């Protein structure tokens, strides 16, 4: 399994190194994406079942096409070099050949056979991915695409969160795959975390599904892959694949209502009297909006605004002050809070653990 991945690429990933050097010192607390050669979103570095099956098929298709390329390319080069006009050619036309049935037959039949093989290989993978059985212990998550963020609901676990998906790693002996139901609240989106699975679109009025069965823990990145409007580029995906006990702990923390002190803070008052609560939910309080991300456990997330910025107090404040500084075109308006109010609201947000 790992040997195969080594064959694909064996180059040090410079960018990760640079990122570690530059960013490592300042913010060591935030999770780093799992390492992969060339890119953390390399489709040829799969760590989960559908992506691995696709990788196997890709290698087969690449081998066949590379062979075709080698043959035809050599023939073309040979012809172009061999049959170029010589300087001293006597001006006579070359022999005229109009065609040949045998040759035509040959280069019709051989491609048909190749195509058949490729087709059968692809058909097998389609069937095994799309008809995969759903074991009873599978984790179920409903993913809802919004302009420009992701909502995650774990219906049987009573958890609602945003932008950062947590799933358990799967033990091949006792697989616990995750099955996603894909919905959209507005326009088309597409869920694509290359190292885990191929992409599947989220289309309004057209529920879709996909699944993944990761073998390795770590943070896997991806992003929306169907143009969905102004901030399509900053609709990033983060999937945290965790050990089962870690995952269970996370679920427990997420399913608690917001941790609010007995006295209602100034920030909470402002949050609840401003339109914030029309769009945001903080479970256990008056806030129950659904247009924007659930903020109940905001501070449990590494990033805000669908990965557009790290979840630091500074960024939170900048975001609430004017989201368009971080994400121009985002659907959250600048609420025009005064500086003291802004500080109070930020402090309140920071208490949402």
């Amino acid at each position, binding site marked *: 399994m790992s040997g195969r991945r080594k064959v694909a690429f064996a180059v040090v990933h410079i960018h*990760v190194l640079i990122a570690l050097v530059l960013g490592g010192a300042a913010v060591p607390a935030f999770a780093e994406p799992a390492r992969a050669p060339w890119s*953390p979103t*390399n489709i040829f570095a799969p760590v989960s079942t559908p992506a691995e099956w696709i990788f196997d098929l890709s290698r087969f298709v690449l081998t066949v096409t590379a062979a075709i390329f080698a043959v*035809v390319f050599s023939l073309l080069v040979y012809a172009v070099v061999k*049959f170029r006009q010589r300087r001293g050619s006597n001006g006579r036309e070359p022999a005229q050949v109009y065609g040949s049935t045998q040759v035509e037959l040959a280069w*019709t039949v051989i491609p048909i056979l190749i195509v058949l093989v490729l087709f059968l290989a692809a058909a097998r993978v389609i069937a095994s991915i799309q008809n995969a059985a759903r074991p009873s212990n599978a984790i179920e998550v409903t993913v809802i695409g919004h302009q420009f963020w992701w909502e995650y609901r774990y219906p049987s676990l009573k958890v609602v969160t945003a932008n950062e998906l947590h799933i358990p790693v799967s033990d091949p002996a006792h697989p616990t795959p995750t099955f996603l139901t894909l919905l959209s609240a507005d*326009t088309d989106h597409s869920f*694509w975390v290359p190292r885990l699975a191929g992409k599947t679109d989220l289309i309004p009025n057209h529920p879709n599904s996909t699944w993944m069965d990761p073998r390795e823990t770590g943070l896997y990145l991806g992003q929306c892959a169907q143009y969905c409007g102004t901030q399509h580029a900053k609709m990033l995906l983060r999937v945290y694949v965790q050990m089962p006990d870690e995952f269970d702990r996370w679920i427990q923390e997420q399913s608690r209502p917001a941790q609010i002190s007995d006295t209602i803070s100034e920030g909470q008052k402002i949050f609840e009297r401003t339109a914030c609560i029309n769009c945001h939910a903080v479970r256990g309080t008056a806030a129950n909006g659904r247009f924007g991300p659930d903020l109940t456990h905001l501070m449990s997330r590494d990033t805000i605004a669908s990965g557009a910025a790290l979840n630091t107090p500074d960024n939170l404040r900048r975001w609430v002050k004017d989201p368009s500084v971080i994400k*121009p075109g985002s659907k959250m308006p600048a609420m025009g809070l005064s500086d003291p109010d802004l500080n109070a609201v930020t402090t309140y947000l920071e208490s949402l653990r």
Partner: protein
Amino acid sequence: MSTESIAWSTPQVAAQRPVVERLHDWVTTVDHKRLGILYILYALVFLVIGGVEATVLRIQLIRPHNDFVSPQVFNRMFTMHGTTMIFFAVMPILFGFANYLIPLMIGARDMAFPRLNAFSFWLTAFGGLLLYFSFVGGDGLYGAGNAPDVGWFAYAPLTSKTFSVGHSTDFWTLSLLVSGFGSIGTAINIITTVLCMRCPGMTLGRMPLLAWLNLTMAGLVVLAISPLTAAQLMLLVDRYLGGHFFDTQAGGSAVMWMHFFWVFGHPEVYVLVIPAFAFASEIIPVFSRKAIFGYPVMVAATICIAFIGMSVWAHHMFTVGMSAAGNTFFVLSTMAIAVPTGIKIFNWLATIWGGQIDFKTPMLFCVAFLFQFLIAGLTGIMLGAAPFNWQLGNSYFVIAHFHYVIVGAILFTLFGAFYYWFPKMSGRMYNEALGKLHFWLFVIGFHLTFDFMHIPGILGMPRRIYTYEPGRGWDTWNLIITIGVFFQAAGLLVFIGNLLWSYRRGKVAGSDPWDAWTLEWSTTSPPPTYNFATIPAIKSRRPLWDLKHPEDPDWQYE
């Protein structure tokens, strides 16, 4: 004496007529050659505009978190780039060549319906203006304009009133609607001309391949543009008459728009590439000094491509959640199209085989086309394997693949066609050295840009993002891709400079500078309005070969 001198001096008099009058001639012309040139010039303007838009996109993406343009401007630029290039650059150029060449090559004096021809051109021209008027009028009455930003395939529900306020989407819809009628008019004209206007002796089996391929292309236009037109009308009904075809908030279907669009969109690829095949099929034999290999097979393969091409559209939709059976079917049909396409490549190869290749600029472009089209076909097979597509679809790999088709195959053969027929159209030779410079600049630029573009796709970079995060391993590739653009732009400038300079200063070409074999080379360059003083009569596919080689004419073998 006096009458004679008047007769001889008419051309000069014509040249001295006031500009307004000469312009009036062009505006009111129904001559297929003039309309062809109008199409081509008009499309060249849009090619440059679309190229500028692409450059803006590439400068923005040169490094992560660049802020050369805002996300809004970026999104408008890629929408306009795609729409412009497909509908107002490449398609009209191809129609222009078809218009100019078909009557000349089949020995006719004009297209079947000259006035429909003019009407079609002006519809297309008006469509392009409508699209660009959105920059001024896109916001309706608010004063500031804005171009459409829904992407060139304008997926629902982004185009609904909810998500696309103002009128930019309306300008997009109406411009495609109007130019679509123009395309259908031209297609009907081509079909009728090819079927009814051939000169005596030119049976279907003796038509130049260019005529055959354009006939097929025109058939596809009629089949493909109609669903697009229907979809645009439905969209207008949604936006203005309270319809709910694609309005998902009221139960409409986003997937239905995709089907309508791609039932047009995929055949459209063949509408564009079949004429490119046509150029290659004329140019390669002449510069290899050999008859095309396997003429009947070439015709059959083309028709085969057209038929299969009508049944592969949902390979653009492998990620929308079709059933396993649906996906499997579209894998099969998509893979099947590789067979006739491969046959064509092999036939061109066999045409070169045993020939005496003369690497003039037109041939250089066609040889590059063969290599590039081979690669485009192979990446197409990768994308056609649905599971592989679940990774590659909508990534930069797809962008690389279809630019390999549209630039590497179509634009390259188009440049070849420009150089090949420029002497016929203008009466002058182009400058060979500049032509070769153009070729090499373009080859370098093309490969820098589009070879390296496959890589970020494989590394997970989706299309249509105005910026990207550092640390994804995409930076270097994007830098190289952008550098290639400047080589291509330089090549394009050399090309346009060459055409302008040669039009005034080029060597006089004579009627048959390439020692070629089809009928357009039997009349003067440029041809008179009536094309042929006497309508030719032919006995084989290469009438001029027969003339030049009476001892060994083609008709003995066909």
